[in-house]
């Protein structure tokens, strides 16, 4: 079956611009997670949704970052006024039972 998909696969933007990153979880998975991975490091947690609501957003670095999941399926991570330090791979994962998390291929964001 289809896994987690993320679009775009690559995004290049200029400092100060706004970007949206999309995640399509595995069908039927109620839990959805966003992580950020910098070069040479493990993924770092950003936010977790259970259904439509953000159950834990403790990993969002500041108020420029926001995520939504309005219908409990697709999620969008939104970054305002991007900075060069936001450059990373943004990973999305989903889970049916809160245990095994299935990851998508990620979106590589480059802020020039």
């Amino acid at each position, binding site marked *: 079956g289809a896994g987690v998909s993320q679009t775009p696969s690559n995004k290049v933007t200029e400092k100060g611009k706004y970007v949206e990153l999309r995640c399509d979880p595995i069908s039927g998975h109620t839990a959805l997670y966003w992580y950020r991975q910098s070069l040479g490091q*493990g993924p770092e947690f950003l936010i977790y949704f259970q259904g439509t609501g953000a159950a834990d957003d403790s990993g969002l670095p500041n108020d420029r970052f926001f995520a939504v999941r309005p219908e409990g399926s697709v999620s969008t991570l939104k970054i305002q006024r991007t900075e060069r330090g936001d450059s990373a791979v943004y990973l999305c994962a989903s889970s049916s039972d809160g245990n095994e998390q299935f990851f998508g291929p990620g979106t590589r964001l480059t802020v020039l």
Partner: protein
Amino acid sequence: GENVGLHLPTLSVQEGDNSIINCAYSNSASDYFIWYKQESGKGPQFIIDIRSNMDKRQGQRVTVLLNKTVKHLSLQIAATQPGDSAVYFCAERNQGEKLIFGQGTELSVKP
């Protein structure tokens, strides 16, 4: 500042040998642990998991060992193959649903 030029620990093994990748986790309250494999340009791929009430779990060619006394996790890969070459991450769960990942180890398999 940025960790420019951060290098992952590397393990190099000969094809057919067994590999052991180690991980120290941070929180004694963690109740669930996962090993992920990540190939270049791809997202992490689940390998095996273990709950804190167990000390060993086996899968196909892989075994995870958990030592809660010293907060240590290991992944053993039997008869390592070139396709096993990747970066391996351990992850722990201790607060709700989020996973906390370790630094990662790069496994290189020589044919």
